[in-house]
């Protein structure tokens, strides 16, 4: 049995920008949660959740020994910091877009 929780409950994240590319790194608080993060938080998953915002390809890099993933999302900033008309033209808040996704954890998981 499993239940769905927000990724925000088990992981923290940081967003950065270069031109029109956004990167979001995601880190589990508890190393024991890393396997399910790695299994469930795929580039396809993020792309499917936010297709209109993240228009380009998404590439994922893994840092297994640090229990983190780094997502590099191209054409994801509406042109980038000097072009976008959006309020958050750096995409600083994109980290919380990712943390807003659901993740399935075992029913008996503590916390």
């Amino acid at each position, binding site marked *: 049995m499993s239940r769905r929780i927000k990724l925000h409950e088990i992981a923290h994240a940081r967003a950065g920008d270069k031109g029109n590319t956004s990167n979001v790194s995601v*880190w589990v608080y508890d190393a024991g949660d890393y396997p399910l993060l790695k299994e469930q938080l795929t580039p396809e998953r993020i792309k499917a959740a936010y297709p209109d*915002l993240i228009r380009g390809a998404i590439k994922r890099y893994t*840092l297994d020994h*640090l229990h983190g993933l780094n997502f590099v999302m191209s054409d994801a900033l509406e042109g980038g910091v*000097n*072009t976008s008309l*959006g309020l*958050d033209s750096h995409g600083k808040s994109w980290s919380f877009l990712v943390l807003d996704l659901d993740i399935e954890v075992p029913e008996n998981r503590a916390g």
Partner: protein
Amino acid sequence: MLRLGCGAGFSSDRLEPAIDLAEKGALDYLVFETIGERTLAFGHRDRQLDPKRGYNPQLGARMRGTLAGCKRNGTRIVTNMGVANVGAAAEVVIEVARSQGLDGVTVAAIEGDDVSDLIGPDTILFDNHGKTVAEVGRPVVGANVYLGIDAIMPGLESGADVVITGRVADPSLFLSPLVHRYGWQRDDWQKLGQGTLVGHLLECGMQITGGYFADPGRKDVPRLADCGYPIAEVDERGNCVITKLADAGGMVTPRTVKEQLMYEVHDPTAYLTPDVTADFSGVTVQESGRDRVAVANGTGRKRPDKLKVTVGFDGGFFGEAGVSYAGPNATARAALARDILRDRLAHRPGFTSLRIDLIGINSLHATAHGPRAESADVRVHAAMRSASRDDVATMLWEVESLLCCGPAGGGGYRGQITPSVITHSALIDRDAVRPSVKVFRA
């Protein structure tokens, strides 16, 4: 052991904790990193408006706050606060030194990052679907190459108290003092990679001591209001401990360090700078005490042959304006205001780029997913960019007019127009770049 401090991680970063580092940090070097793609664009804009400007607007305040303390404590300053006008910036530092009676202070100005003469209509912009400069169809207002340690080292070797640059790769500001102190070879890619890691971790200032990190209830940070800038203690192999002043707020933990490790990094095995192709993929992060985190095992490979150039284009004018609605049915009234603005403006030529967000409903993640919920506090925010200042002014006028001829209860109009620069990136041959150093004395 070399003690490196970071006193600014971006253009508008805080001053007080930098003064604390200058006074109490027992630093060998205090580095101020203040250039981003956005702030470099602002530098070009400022210099266009006034040839004596274009450097970091906080340069004078930062120097008045830290120069005397650094001089007293034997701390040298390295900074890219020259932005788009290094020569004028060096003169500002000299003026501050004279006004504080610091006769004999020397400033090394590193120039050569302005490569406008190497950028032509046929230059390819690799971040713009391979289009050329000519195809952008806007005047070029500046082109700056990312210089590296090769450009900064002569400034350090001159013995100057302050080394000031324009566009250099951010980590190079921190790597150059390490190379200067420890005599690392310019092809010792392992050490240059580890030293670049140190610079990468420090370059955003408080982002590694608790800033850009706090999430109440999940990631609490002690005394964030008094957050201190970071210090790195670096040995001759490049291994380092990241820490902060004991009495400063904030914290240094493996979590703050890991988030910063991947900040603005793409492939962790290939972080490109002018100095090295750094490899952060095997980096280890170990807590070694309270607010002390040891970072090691960064490495690297041969540096790239090409250097990155940021090309700035005249972006015309950027305007934004807003009006707010609150209380019962606020969301519907704000949405009506948005629709009225579209009716009044969007059909006119020159207004096709108009963007309208509802702050409180969909302004940040608007295009990611649909509106979430009602809000009792909504701001209509309109933004556009245009070559015509008059068109932007028309947009502001229409937003302000909503006060009397829009939905009920609209208030809090604000609007502003600023000149705009758009940036793209190109690559040029390293050999074509000719950095120079000029030393000034107070």
